[in-house]
């Protein structure tokens, strides 16, 4: 396929259905089996009526009523500080109580968690709700009495997929302590950055775990994490270490005296203790989940207690079709939002049995997941297209060898190709399971787009319509709605707030506002939720039947000789040069090619500017994207002009490169940088005779709008 056919779907990109069909033709509907419909939680079509826009926001009472509240809320949705929306205001509850206590009281012997070790020689461990209650209480007592944690503190977890991870999360929630789990496979440095950003003074980790047949030394990462955090000014007082096998230390890393402690030893002091769950306001933060941003600094998405828990309980019930007597297996990692919402909080809030699998799905072979499903009687299976492709590749015929039955299956994370979808449906699901394809993001807490499995037919490659109470819309760059069935792509937004949406970016509310809400807001003072569409940063097209196809990340575009180059693509290529800390690509007017690219980079500490780095950046862009994207200039600058929230002001940089008016820069966090860059760049350009002609009004307007600032 020629380059010009591969439009990056940038803002304003008009991608026709025909163009999309080059990759993906419209698929047929597949109806769910009657046996599924008969038992589904959401089998009555009237459910859709209960969530129509005229019932918003009170429709979400149905989700909140799935929880046990200490005190009822008086205001369902408070928009007085839009878009910092508050849900179920006045209500009080505890997430740990809702996921543990109430089920332990009713069914203490019912299995809550099945931990499946990677080694098949080790038997699965069944943790009943009664046992979970005991473990959560004892660990909560330890956290309060030994670690000194109290309501509102943040604590960083760097734990692999073991049962101790949900125990730790629920113990934190019991105390109103905000947990921040870092994916166990991430480096110590990544963990350290998150410790620092969240201001955690306690790290909870593990000595080791199994992955792909190897016992991984995990504790060694804690030392690196603490060093990175300390460098950023955050000291950690204590490191609490779960041991994969209590009494045996699986790491080579030395224990730091007075800092590092084995949890199994400490727990001896807390046996039998109970801790009353702290009654938390509905809008109190429950956890932080970090997601990579565009600045190289991860964003700590802050999720609430009441709204989040209600939303994941409701979507787990209606979209995952979880019943209390199900055995449910989501093969994601709890280190990501999918695991938080659909391994821990959603399933446990509904009192079901959730599976926690330690290792990789294709170890020791591609039949492992199906053996687990057979052995445990898994009825609901949830995984990503990447895992499905992997399992299909290593063992296309494996599912048929095992006697399991899935009534329901989920895919999440990215669009799935129809032929892969069909393998999932016919081979894994044995043509008898309902499949839901889901679309959502870390920031969203739970699903945004999907089909109600008993009521809306499956369509391979499409996630479906907006879920209950979610009213998506596709806008073009001018804020005009792109109608369903028009065949045009645009920016998919959600017109309304919902209970599961994150509350803010931890410590950076301006970035929350500018990244997700400013784009389509026309009145910054408005208290009306209708004026604050949520900008997802994904492109999509909506078919006439209302189903959405998600196309990918939207991106600013620089049009070079007819080639539409995504700025993020160019910047991402530059960021792969190890010395580069930040990058910003901007357009420069060019008489021959219309626009050319200039790229600004700042370097990591310890590196000095020089021709060698400039050449590396150019080479990276040429290699990764092509010669068409070769930057006209690489400017290595000491710093980038930024908003107080850390967003690079590409508009200002573009103005400098084009000798245009930079506009008002007084509100920047570092306005002095603008003069410094202007002097550096314009002096060099003037010296080489590279001064552009005066811009037309249209060109000036284009630069003013560049970067969405």
């Amino acid at each position, binding site marked *: *396929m020629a*380059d010009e056919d*591969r439009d*990056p*779907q940038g803002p304003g990109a008009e991608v026709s259905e025909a163009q*999309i069909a080059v*990759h*993906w033709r419209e698929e047929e509907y597949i109806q769910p089996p009657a046996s599924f419909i008969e038992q589904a939680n959401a089998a009555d079509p009237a459910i859709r009526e209960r969530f129509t826009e005229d019932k918003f926001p009170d429709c979400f009472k149905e989700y909140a009523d799935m929880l046990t509240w200490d005190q009822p809320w008086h205001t369902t949705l408070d928009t007085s500080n839009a878009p910092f929306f508050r849900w179920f205001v006045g209500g009080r509850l505890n997430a740990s109580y809702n996921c543990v206590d109430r089920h332990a009281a009713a069914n203490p012997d019912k299995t809550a968690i099945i931990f499946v070790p990677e080694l098949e020689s080790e038997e699965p461990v069944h943790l009943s709700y009664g046992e979970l209650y005991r473990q959560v209480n004892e660990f909560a007592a330890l956290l309060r009495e030994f670690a000194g944690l109290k309501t509102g503190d943040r604590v960083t977890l760097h734990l692999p997929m073991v049962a101790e991870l949900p125990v730790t999360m629920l113990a934190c929630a019991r105390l109103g302590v905000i947990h921040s789990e870092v*994916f166990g*496979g*991430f*480096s110590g*440095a*990544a963990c350290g950055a998150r410790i620092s950003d969240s201001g955690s003074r306690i790290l909870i980790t593990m000595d080791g775990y199994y992955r792909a047949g190897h016992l991984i030394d995990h504790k060694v990462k804690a030392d690196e994490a603490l060093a990175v955090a300390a460098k950023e000014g955050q000291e950690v007082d204590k490191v609490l270490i779960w041991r994969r096998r209590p009494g045996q230390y699986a790491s080579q890393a030395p224990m730091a005296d007075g800092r590092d402690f084995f949890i199994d030893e400490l727990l001896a002091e807390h046996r039998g203790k109970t801790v009353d769950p702290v009654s938390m306001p509905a809008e109190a933060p429950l956890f932080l989940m970090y*997601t*990579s*941003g565009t600045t*190289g600094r991860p964003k700590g998405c802050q999720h609430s207690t009441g709204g989040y828990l209600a939303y994941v309980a409701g979507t787990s019930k209606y979209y995952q079709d979880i019943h209390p007597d199900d055995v449910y297996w989501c093969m994601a*990692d709890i*280190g*990501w*939002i*999918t695991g938080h919402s659909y391994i821990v909080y959603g399933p446990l809030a509904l009192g079901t049995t959730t599976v926690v699998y330690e290792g990789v799905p294709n170890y020791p072979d591609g039949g492992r997941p199906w053996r687990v499903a057979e052995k445990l009687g898994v009825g609901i299976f949830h995984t*990503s*297209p*990447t*895992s499905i*492709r*992997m399992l299909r*590749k290593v063992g296309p015929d494996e599912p048929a060898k095992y006697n399991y039955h899935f009534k329901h299956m989920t895919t*999440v*994370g*990215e*669009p799935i*190709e129809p*032929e892969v979808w069909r393998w999932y449906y016919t081979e894994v699901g044995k043509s008898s399971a309902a499949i839901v394809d889901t*679309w*959502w*993001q*870390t920031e969203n807490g739970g699903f945004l787009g999907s089909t109600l499995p008993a009521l809306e037919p499956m369509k391979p*490659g499409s996630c479906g319509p907006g879920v209950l109470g979610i009213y998506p819309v596709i806008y073009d760059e001018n804020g005009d709605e792109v109608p369903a069935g028009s065949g045009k792509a645009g920016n998919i937004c959600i017109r309304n707030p919902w209970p599961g949406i994150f509350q803010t970016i931890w410590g950076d509310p301006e970035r929350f506002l500018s990244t997700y809400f400013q784009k389509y807001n026309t009145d910054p003072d408005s208290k009306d939720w209708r004026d604050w569409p949520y900008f*997802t940063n*994904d*492109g999509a097209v909506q078919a006439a039947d209302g189903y959405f196809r*998600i*196309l*990918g*990340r939207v*991106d600013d575009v620089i049009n070079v000789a007819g080639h539409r180059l*995504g700025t*993020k*693509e160019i910047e*991402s*290529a530059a*960021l*792969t040069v*190890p010395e580069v800390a930040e990058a910003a690509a901007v357009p420069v007017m060019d008489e021959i090619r219309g626009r050319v690219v200039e790229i600004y980079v700042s370097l990591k500490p310890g590196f000095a500017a020089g021709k060698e780095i400039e050449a590396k950046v150019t080479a990276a862009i040429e290699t*990764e*994207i*092509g010669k068409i994207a070769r930057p006209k200039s690489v400017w290595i600058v000491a710093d980038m002009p930024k908003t107080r929230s850390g967003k690079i002001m590409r508009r200002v940089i573009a103005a400098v490169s084009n000798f245009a008016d930079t506009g008002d820069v007084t509100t920047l966090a570092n306005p002095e940088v603008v003069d410094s860059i202007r002097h550096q760049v314009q002096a060099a350009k003037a010296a080489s005779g590279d001064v552009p002609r005066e811009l037309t009004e249209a060109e000036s307007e284009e630069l003013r709008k560049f970067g969405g600032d």
Partner: protein
Amino acid sequence: MEPAAAAGRPREAGTGARVCGVAMTMTQQYLAGELSVLLERVQAVATTEAASRDAKALREAAETVPVQALGWVTVRALALTERFCWDSLSRGDTAAFTRQAAAEAALREFGICASLLRDD
């Protein structure tokens, strides 16, 4: 294997690997995590300090760059492991070569299954 719907520009790289498209934002953070784990393995099979540093830098990139840049990180990682393999072969170090080739294979397999690379 066909690329995902939003296929972007496939790019020739030194290893013959091609970047496939623009990754979705969605809930794809896990791809960064899996890539980080595989790069830890690449770092472990490096036989010199400089090679280890290069692998570490790529791992840091995987953990910090936007999701849509992961394809390029994967391509660079493949080029790096291929370099490791050639170095080991030139020294006649078959044990190191075997470990490095396995790491590269795992990386390539993941890249293709995650639609970060094209399978052609």
